[in-house]
């Protein structure tokens, strides 16, 4: 199992479109993937769960991954959240 903390830097936070992107990335992997904020943990493959986190700009989230492809999953999520910042313009 691996875990990593992220700060959400894009201006609008994880609103609908970024939540959709995260869910789409997460569902590509076999591992169980969770995302939590302020102690609330939800399934990162459920868009309703991710939206319910209300992870706005500047909030801190923890990604927890457990499974055979956990490392590549984390890499893909890092890329989306940190490098591409959800492709926000």
């Amino acid at each position, binding site marked *: 199992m691996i875990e990593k903390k992220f700060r959400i830097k894009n201006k609008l*936070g994880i609103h609908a479109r970024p939540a959709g992107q995260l869910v789409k990335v997460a569902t590509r992997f076999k591992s169980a993937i969770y995302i939590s904020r302020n102690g609330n943990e939800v399934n990162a493959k*459920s868009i309703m769960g991710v939206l319910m986190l209300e992870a706005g700009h500047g909030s801190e989230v923890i990604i927890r991954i457990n499974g055979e492809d956990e490392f590549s999953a984390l890499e893909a999520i890092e890329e989306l959240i940190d490098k591409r910042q959800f492709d926000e313009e």
Partner: protein
Amino acid sequence: MHAESAASQEMRIKGLAVSQGIAIGPAFPFGSGIQDVRPHEVAAAEVEAEVQRLTQAIENAKCELTRIGEETQERLGERSAEIFEVHILILDDPEIRGAAIRRIREERLNAEWLFLQVVEKYEQSFSHFKDEYMRARATDLQDVKRRVIRQLQGAAKSPGDGLPGPAVVFAADLMPSETIHLRRDYVLGFATELGSRTSHAAILARSLKVPSVVGLGPVCQYLVPGTPVILDGYSGQLILNPAPETLERYEKTRSLYEALSHKLARSRTLPARTKDGKDIELSANIEFFEEVQPAIADGAIGVGLYRTEYLFLMRDELPTEEEQYAEYVRIIDALHRQPIIFRTFDLGGDKAQRHFHVHQEANPFLGYRGVRLYSEREEVFRMQLRAILRASVRGRVRILIPMISSVTEMRFCRGVLESVKEELRAAAIPFDEEIPVGAMIEVPSAAVSADLIARECDFLSIGTNDLIQYTLAVDRSNRYVDQMYRAFSPSVLRLIRDTIHHGHAQGVWVGMCGEMASDPLATMALIGMGLDEFSVSPVSLLVIKDIIRRVHFDECENLAERVLSYSTADEVENYLSSVFRRKFRDLIIHDPNHPLVRREQN
């Protein structure tokens, strides 16, 4: 809810104008009447059927979202379309779909009610979010919710039901069955998320003269019932929460248009005759039964182009002869012996695939379409001819063959027609023995050999849309070259002149059923070239008639001669615009979106 506070500013959305006019009033989003949903018990034996009903409704809603997404992507790019993927993810989420299904099984209540409960629980949580942007996600849920509930309520609930008063009706798409049930006096305008100029809703809106804009994209999510809107069916603009100045400007423009159409309507029953007495046959292009009555009311002397493809595209199977016959009879009877030109099915490219197993073509517009399908699928062509011939005894019917590019094709069609007639005679089935047959002139090869083709025909009808595109080698839907699509190119004008001339020399009359016939700027030039018949879109009937009634034939001849002497489309258009401004000042409304004013500015 929060949409209200977020949307109280003026907001403009561009769609596709499909039916002229300006509608000002409160919005009525289709499906906003879901407060009608009530819980009721489902018998134990029916529970699985109820689950199935919800599953089907969700799948249908997903299909709709996929379509909107594709259309939006085409028009506005990938980013704008992503929101629909999110909506699809929401519908597939176990917390939504799974939870609703589980609750149907446990609580044995109806799908509408439980789906609403599940979604509204989240909606409520969202509305308590601190972050304003996050809070606004509740509108995504509302949109998803309405879509599914509408699917569940199905055709039983038409968008006009529960219209509290005059309103602008909004919907994802309006199905024929839905539009037909609307209370006409309450519908100020139609606005849809999906659709094109030729969608059924668009055609119906035009025939009902209700301003309409389609293809607006994800608009329902910004609306709550009663949001004040302006729908501009000239420019395709939708304005939400218009500012007072905007409202004032539009009210003024609307009254100008109303005054003009009121004035034009006075010549409804007068003949389309020039001042010096030349009669012009002015008829309408139609596709559906519903369009016949309004066109006749606006003074069309008949139908100059009845597009029959609709019957072939409705379903996966081909229409039977009886189905075609019934529809043709209905339309012919509505005309009370005024003439009608049936264009035999003009399918091609993607449209024909379902029925004709057309191969993927690199250039469908240069491929297997129109009359070119008839030899391989002669039985389909014969069946349509039989249906038309049988119906022909009830009125004055003419037949028009699309996409003719050679005499050989025309001879083939006449041969088939003769053999079908022979069949009917043998079976003692009555039909009009003298039924006239014409060729559609829309391919340059047909236009330049119009004399040869006219010898095989009783009339010619010029289809300008394809003629222009083939002559100039310009695909009008390709935005890299669409500015080169010019109806007033000297090359196109020469082909039109020659076609008319050749037709007359062979003793047949020549009409026009393409868009150019509906363009007020072209009317005088076409009269001057000797065009006998104008078949126009129903909304253009009154203005074209007004122009015809205000000109002399010899003045049109002089104008045509001058127009044909110019070397570029710009020169032609500038000249025609200047004449139009001088003679028909009153027909131009100073609205920057008016087609004629817009053209001047370009």
